[in-house]
C-alpha cells in the first residue's frame, strides 16, 4: 500500500546505516511532496537522493506545520475571586524578593500581612508562594488563607502543591470542612471550636473514621481550644486509637482536665508512691518507684516492658510513665512545694531522672510559666538534654523577651551568636520580638558592625537576615543602613545591601 508523503522514518534507516548499504526509498508515494521527491532525485547518486529528499521533507514540514488535533476536554477554569489583590508595584516587588531570595520569616510576614489586610496573593506570585510552603511546612497555615481561588486551583495542577488543594475562601464555610485542604480544615475546626465547642467536637467524631493518622492527630490537637469536661469521653476513647500520635495528643489534653477519671486514676497512683517522712523537726517528702508491675496499667497507657535502648531502669521507667500522666499543678498542691523546690527535691531522690523527664513531658504538653522558669534556673546537670530555647518558647512573649534581654546583657560579644540563635528559635515564624529586646539586639548588632566583629564573624553574618525579620519594626532604623567599613569584604558589602532590602521589604509589607 502506498503512502501519501515521505517522513523522517522513511529516510532514517538509510541515513543511519549509510547509503552505500541501503538506498533511500524514492518512490511509491501518492502525495504531491512524495511525487516531488521522486522527480527531484531522478538520476542522482544515492547520497544525493537522500540529502535531496531530506531537504524536501525538512522544508515541507516547516511549510505544512500544524499542531496536533486536541480531542481532550479542556481543564476546569479557576473560579473568580472577589477579594482584592495587591497591585502596588513596590509591595509586589518586595514580595517577589521575599519569596525568591528572602528567609522564611520574611515570607511569613508577607502572608500574615496579606491575611490581616484581607487581600489575596497576586497571581504571578502564586507559584513562588506555593513552592516556599512546599519546602517549609510551617508556612502552610499562613499561606492557605491568602491563596485565593486561583491559588487553590493552581495547587491542584501540581503534585508537589497538593497540600494546598482545597476550596476557595469564597466557598460556603461548610465546604472548607468537607472539601478543604488540611490547613483549611484545621482553620475551620479551630473557628468552630471557639464559637461552638460541642458542635466542633461532634463534627470531628463523625469525621474520625475517614481521617489518616496524621490528620486525626492534627485535628484532635485543636480540641485544646475551649477544652472542657464534655471532651473527656472522646479523649478517653482516643487513648486507645491505633495511632501512637493520636494517643499522645489525647493524653496531652487529658493532662489539662484534672477532674477527668483518667487523670484522677493517674494522680492516685502517684499518691500511693509518695509519702512524708519525719526527719528530726522537719517532715520530708519521699517517693518510691513501683516495685512490681500492675496488669491494670496497660488500660491507662502505661507500658510494663521497658524499651530496648531505654536509659532508665525498669522501676524508673514505670515511675516516669506515671509521672507524665499527672498535671504539674497537682504536685505543688499536694506537696506545698514550688516548682523550683520540687526540682531541687527531685535531685536529692533516687528517682531524679524519671521525675524530671516526666515533668518535662507534662510541661511541653501543658505549659506552665512557673515550671518553665524553674527548669531554666535549675541545676544544668538535672535538666541535661532539654533545650533552653524550647523551654523559653513556652513562656509568654514578655517573659521570653525579658529572659533573652538578661542573657544578652550578661554575656560578652562572643556569646551573642548563640543567644541570637536561641532567641530566634523561641520566636514563632510570623512573630516579632518585643520592642525592648529588639532594641537591645539591634543596638548590639550595630555595635558589632561598627567594631568589625560582624564583618569577621561568619556565623553571625549568616543569622542576620533571620534576625532582621524577627525584630520589632521600630528598631529597624538602627540597622538601616549598616555602617560602611574601610576595606570591607564583598561578602560584608552584599550583607549590608541585603539588610537594606530586607528592611525595605518589611516596611513595604506594613503598607499592605
Amino acid at each position, binding site marked *: 500500500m502506498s503512502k501519501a508523503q515521505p517522513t523522517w522514518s522513511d529516510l532514517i534507516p538509510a541515513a*543511519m546505516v*549509510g547509503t552505500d548499504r541501503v538506498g533511500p526509498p524514492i518512490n511509491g508515494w501518492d502525495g504531491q511532496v512524495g511525487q516531488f521527491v521522486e522527480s527531484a532525485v531522478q538520476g542522482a547518486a544515492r547520497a544525493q537522493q537522500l540529502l535531496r529528499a531530506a531537504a524536501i521533507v525538512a522544508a515541507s514540514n516547516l511549510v505544512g506545520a500544524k499542531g496536533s488535533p486536541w480531542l481532550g476536554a479542556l*481543564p476546569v477554569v479557576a473560579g473568580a475571586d472577589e477579594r482584592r489583590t495587591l497591585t502596588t508595584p513596590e509591595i*509586589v516587588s518586595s514580595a517577589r524578593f521575599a519569596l*525568591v531570595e528572602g528567609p522564611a520569616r520574611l515570607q511569613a510576614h508577607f502572608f500574615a500581612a496579606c491575611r490581616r489586610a484581607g487581600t489575596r496573593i497576586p497571581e504571578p506570585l502564586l507559584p513562588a508562594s506555593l513552592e516556599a510552603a512546599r519546602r517549609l511546612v510551617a508556612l502552610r497555615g499562613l499561606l492557605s488563607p491568602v491563596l485565593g481561588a486561583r491559588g487553590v486551583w493552581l495547587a491542584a495542577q501540581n503534585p508537589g502543591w497538593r497540600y494546598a488543594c482545597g476550596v476557595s475562601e469564597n466557598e460556603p464555610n461548610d465546604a472548607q470542612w468537607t472539601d478543604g485542604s488540611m490547613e483549611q480544615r484545621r482553620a475551620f475546626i479551630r473557628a468552630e471550636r471557639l464559637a461552638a465547642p460541642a458542635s466542633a467536637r461532634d463534627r470531628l467524631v463523625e469525621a474520625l473514621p475517614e481521617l489518616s493518622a496524621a490528620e486525626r492527630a492534627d485535628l484532635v490537637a485543636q480540641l485544646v481550644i475551649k477544652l472542657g469536661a464534655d471532651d473527656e469521653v472522646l479523649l478517653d476513647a482516643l487513648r486507645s486509637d491505633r495511632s501512637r500520635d493520636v494517643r499522645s495528643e489525647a493524653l496531652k489534653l487529658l493532662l489539662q482536665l484534672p477532674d477527668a477519671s483518667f487523670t484522677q486514676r493517674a494522680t492516685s497512683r502517684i499518691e500511693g508512691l509518695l509519702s512524708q517522712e519525719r526527719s528530726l523537726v522537719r517532715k520530708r517528702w519521699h517517693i518510691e518507684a513501683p516495685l512490681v508491675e500492675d496488669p491494670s496499667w496497660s488500660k491507662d497507657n502505661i507500658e510494663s516492658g521497658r524499651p530496648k535502648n531505654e536509659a532508665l531502669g525498669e522501676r524508673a521507667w514505670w515511675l516516669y510513665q506515671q509521672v507524665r500522666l499527672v498535671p504539674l499543678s497537682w504536685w505543688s498542691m499536694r506537696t506545698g512545694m514550688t516548682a523550683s523546690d520540687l526540682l531541687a527535691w527531685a535531685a536529692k531522690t533516687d528517682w531524679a531522672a524519671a521525675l524530671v523527664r516526666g515533668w518535662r513531658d507534662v510541661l511541653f504538653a501543658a505549659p506552665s510559666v512557673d515550671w518553665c522558669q524553674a527548669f531554666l534556673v535549675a541545676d544544668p546537670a538535672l535538666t541535661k538534654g532539654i533545650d533552653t530555647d524550647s523551654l523559653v518558647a513556652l513562656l509568654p512573649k514578655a517573659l521570653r523577651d525579658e529572659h533573652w534581654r538578661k542573657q544578652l546583657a550578661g554575656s560578652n560579644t562572643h556569646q551573642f551568636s548563640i543567644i541570637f540563635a536561641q532567641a530566634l528559635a523561641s520566636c514563632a515564624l510570623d512573630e516579632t520580638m518585643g520592642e525592648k529586646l529588639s532594641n537591645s539586639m539591634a543596638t548590639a548588632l550595630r555595635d558589632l558592625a561598627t567594631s568589625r566583629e560582624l564583618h569577621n564573624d561568619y556565623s553571625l553574618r549568616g543569622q542576620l537576615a533571620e534576625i532582621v525579620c524577627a525584630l520589632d519594626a521600630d528598631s529597624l532604623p538602627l540597622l538601616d543602613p549598616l555602617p560602611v567599613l574601610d576595606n570591607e569584604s564583598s561578602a560584608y558589602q552584599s550583607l549590608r545591601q541585603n539588610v537594606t532590602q530586607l528592611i525595605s521589604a518589611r516596611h513595604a509589607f506594613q503598607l499592605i
Partner: protein
Amino acid sequence: MALSVDEVLALSPDASSAKAARGLTGTSQWPTLGISEVAAWGECQGSGAKPYQTQVDLNGPVFRCSCPSRKFPCKHGLALLLLRAQAPSAFTTNTPPLWVSEWLESRAERAQKKQEQQAEKTATAVDPDASAKREAQRWKRIQSASVELQRWLADQVTRGLGSVTQESLENWKTMAARMVDAQAPGLGQRILAAAESVRTSPERALHHLGLLHLACEALQRLDLLDPALQAELRTVVGWPFDKTEVLAVGEHVEDHWTVLGVIAEAVDAKLVERRVWLFGQQTGRRALLLEHAFGGRGFEQTWRTGTCVAARLAFFPGSRKLRALPVEITLLETVSLALPLSLEHEWSVLSERAAESPWAPLHPMLLRDSIVLRVGDDAPNVRVVCDNEALPISIDDASFWQMLAVTGGRKHHIAGEWDGECFRPLSIWADESVRTIWQWGQP
C-alpha cells in the same frame, strides 16, 4: 515614560545584579540624587572614600557609572532607576552637575558625528566596479566551499550517521571551521547544529543536513536565482548586510508596531543575542529586530514587551522579509493589538514565509483565544491549545507555572516564536484590555 520596578529589573544583565541593585535602594546610601527631563543621576556611597557617580540618559535608557564593574548596566545604574520608580521624591535637584552635563553633551556630539560619518559614507562615491569585483570574488570562494561541503555531506550519509562517534565529530567541527575560513560562517554554524543532534536526534540532524544540502545546491545555481533569494542565501551563509546597505536597499515600512516579545539569550559565554518581535498594526507585517551584545555590554535601545511604537522599519533584503532595522521610533501612549483571524491564518502566513525561505530558524506567531495546559502527571507535557489544535511548548518549569497562574485555565492571546517543532511563549495578553499579563523572562 518612567520605567516600573519590574521593567528596570528586566534590564539587569543577571539575577545577582538585580539583587545587588535592590540592596542599594536605601536613600541614605545616595547623598545626591537628581533628575532632569533627559537624565537621572546620583552619587552612591560605596566602600571607597569617594562615592560612585552614576548617571542614566533616560532616552535610552543608557547607563554610565564611575564604578569598576564590568557588568552593564551595573547595580548602581539599576538602583538609580529603581529609586526613580520607588521614591521619585528623593530626587531633590534638577540641575545636572558638570559630570552629568559633560557626559550628555559628549553623547550628543558622538551621535552627531556618527550621523555625519554615515552621511559621508553614503555620499562617498564607492567604486562600483571594485565593489562588484570584491563581491564576486567572495561569492566564488563561498561557491567553491559549498561544492566541498556538498561532497562532505554526501560522504557522511554514504558512511551512515549511525557510525558517527564522539571522536569523529571532530571532523564535523573541522568542516565547520573550513566554512568560516571560506567566509561562510553561517554554513559552519549549521554544521555544528547538525553535529549537536546527530547522536541524540537523527531526525533533527537530517533536517539540518537536508537544508545545508539545499543551500549548497542553491549556491551553485546562484546566478539563476532572483535577487531576493540571492540575498536570502547571503544571510544563510552568514554574510551580513551592513546598516547603510539595509537602509539604502531594504524595504521601508511605516506602521504602529506592537512589541509582541523580547527575548535575550546567551549564545556563548560572551555573546548575548536579543530578538525583538514586532507586529505592524495596519500592515499586518511581522518584524524581527535581531541584535547581539558582546562581553556583558548592554543594548543601546530598550524595547518593552506590550508597548507600541510608531516607527519606520527598514527590512533586510531577502525572501523571508522578517529581519528589520528600526528607523525613527516614537513610543505611543496607547497600545493596540490586531488579532489574527484564526490559527489557520497564522499557519498560512508562516507557511508562505517558510516556502520562501526554509532556512529561517524562527517564526513569530500570535495565537488568539488560547489555553495553556498541562497533560499528564507522571511525565507531564505542556501545551497551548488554540482552535482545537495543541502545540507543544518549549519553556522552563518556573515560567510555565507562572503562565498557568496568570491564565487560570482561561483563554488568552499568546505571542511567541515557532522553531519548527515547538512554540516558545513570549507574552500573554489579557483579552479585556490590551496589556500583557505575562512576559518572557519577567522576574
